[in-house]
């Protein structure tokens, strides 16, 4: 994978992967590398847990772009921001509501309050929405999006579609009509069977929830088309060659399974895929000696250490530690091989497991050669 070329040519990099693989750090490092190569780059996250702020060594990171100072002589600039899903959603409502009354009804609705901040899928949708908005504004050369760790890859790819399906008038006729009839509005005759079903749901989840829901959906009437159009535009941008999707994984079995699954979904959805970053690979210290048996290795290491005047007991402990690491390095190498085989010709980049965690700009700079090759 040539990140140097990718970040020079593309305008959007979407970084995906399961939790705990170092996705946020990788996103920040990619944006930093691009900035050091002259681009005006912005890294965005919707993670509420301050991971990005953490990765950049910042105390806090608001939903306004914050400039991260780079070393003197860097040609580009680096910005970072956390996306506030609720605020983005509110903004979208304000833009699309047919009247101020409709807008206020939605913003005050309890279901909306939960939907905009908590429901699975809406966070992802809002990330996409904000990405689109920022891209349209054209303030940055490159946007790097650190995506929320979605267990189900579909959540992410499908988010815009699912949201519009959800609020689509036709599909919700059952609810709104049921609500009107049950609420005594009696606008249209509802089939007896539907009414029975409506009453049944109401009995379980309660009248207030159902009337909130009805109100919410009614308030959305007239906004469907605007939402749908917008979702289609977002989708088009994601599928465009200006965008590239990257996957991050660690060389362990479970994250690799998820990465392969995710990759399949991206390919099926016809989204531009750039490659996989395998993070935290235990370096193989052995070079050509790797095929030696463990016992032989232990003997060789101990003997050479004792020869260098290391106390035999300490030498034995050093040799044990070495073998333990070597086992992990071998596992990693094998897992990376399996991953490469399954991905076929897709580009794959390995980043070694560094001795120290990365949580500031100098740390990100240390990662740069592994991601971009030569330093800027």
């Amino acid at each position: 994978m040539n990140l140097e070329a990718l970040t020079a040519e593309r305008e959007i990099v979407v970084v995906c992967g399961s939790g705990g693989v170092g996705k946020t750090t990788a996103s920040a490092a990619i944006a930093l590398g691009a900035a050091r190569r002259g681009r005006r780059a912005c890294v965005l996250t919707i993670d509420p847990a301050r991971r990005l702020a953490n990765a950049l060594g910042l105390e806090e990171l608001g939903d306004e772009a914050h400039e991260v100072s780079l070393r003197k002589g860097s040609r580009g600039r680096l910005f970072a921001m956390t996306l506030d899903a609720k605020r983005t959603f509110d903004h979208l409502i304000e833009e699309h509501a047919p009247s101020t009354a409709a807008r206020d009804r939605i913003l005050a609705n309890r279901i909306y309050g939960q939907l905009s901040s908590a429901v699975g899928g809406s966070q992802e949708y809002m990330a996409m929405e904000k990405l689109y908005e920022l891209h349209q504004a054209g303030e940055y050369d490159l946007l790097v999006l650190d995506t929320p760790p979605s267990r189900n890859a579909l959540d992410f790819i499908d988010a815009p579609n699912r949201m519009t399906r959800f609020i689509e008038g036709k599909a919700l006729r059952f609810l709104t009509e049921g609500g009107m009839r049950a609420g005594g509005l009696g606008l249209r005759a509802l089939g007896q069977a539907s009414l029975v079903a409506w009453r049944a749901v109401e009995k379980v989840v309660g009248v207030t929830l159902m009337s909130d829901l009805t109100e919410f959906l009614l308030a959305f009437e007239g906004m469907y088309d605007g939402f749908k159009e917008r979702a289609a535009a977002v989708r088009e941008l994601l599928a465009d060659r200006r965008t590239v999707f990257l996957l991050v994984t660690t060389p362990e079995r479970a994250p690799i399974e998820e990465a392969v699954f995710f990759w399949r979904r991206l390919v099926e959805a016809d989204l531009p895929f750039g490659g996989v970053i395998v993070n935290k690979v235990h370096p193989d210290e052995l070079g050509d000696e790797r095929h030696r048996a463990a016992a032989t290795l232990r003997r060789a290491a101990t003997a050479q250490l004792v020869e260098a005047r290391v106390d035999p007991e300490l030498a034995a402990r050093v040799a044990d530690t070495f073998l333990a690491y070597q086992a992990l390095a071998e596992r990693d190498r094998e897992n990376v091989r399996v991953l490469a085989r399954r991905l076929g010709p897709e580009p794959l980049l390995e980043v070694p497991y560094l001795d120290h965690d990365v949580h500031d700009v100098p740390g990100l700079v240390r990662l740069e050669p592994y991601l971009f090759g030569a330093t800027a």
Partner: protein
Amino acid sequence: MSLLDRRVLIVSGKGGVGKTTVAAAVALAAARSGRRTLAVEVSTQHRLARLFNAEAPEHAGEETPLYPNLMGLSIDPQRALEEYLVLALKVRVLAERLVESRAFGYVTAAAPGLKEIVTLGKVWHLSEERTRDGDPRYDLIVVDAPATGHGIGLLRTPRSFLEIARVGRVHAEARAIADFVADRSRTGILLVTLPEEMPVNETVDALGRLRESGLDADAVVVNALYLKRFAESEGDALRSLQPGGETARAAVRAALSQIARRHDQAGEVRRLGRATSVPRVELPFLFAPEVDVEAVSELAEVVGPALEGLR
């Protein structure tokens, strides 16, 4: 009364910290101590069964034996919701029709937390189940909670759900479940973390959020700690060493790497200790290529006594 004498232990945490492994180790430790134990995961992936080399059940949602005294169960929230509806509506045909209708999907998508409520509800009902002799069917249920934004979504749901479902059967249920989760004589909460900067920050954050919801963790499990294998002076000696042999040079690099990581980890553990007074359980890093039943067993040997010692 130790932590293992609670009726339910909920193992929470962000993705990637080893939550499933820790939940499996806790369940195994409980089972080995003679407690009839059920390990629950909230997914359809049967990761627990795979960890114990057990067959996934023939029918989804069935309890499956993992180890003597230990059963496993995968709860699929969607399915749990359907089961709940059948129970609540009493008319199976009606419930089935409802579940099949597209509208049902929209209601459940729009009623945030409904699935989590029924999932917790199912755990709660399982903990109340009795055998014919009147003994609890399970002494302990260990729940591997799904990884969500803050890693504690499942725990906070009942309370936030009370806000939107103010009346009706689900409201009453949510109230009962919220009480159950908050009752420290019955329910225990374990937060799993790693001794690294970000996970520690997130754990401190999650503890604060739990308190906002009137909950508290009973222990923070710090997973994958490197053991101290070398004294400071030995580290210094190794750093200045330049052995002639290539194998020895590689071995020294590995040892220095271990020393560096161990040093950073110790700093993070100290920072966690300064930030919270919640008891800490420390689990060793396992140099095992894959987490298997042996690895889980090794962790169970450590986590079992530690939890027995906590009130």
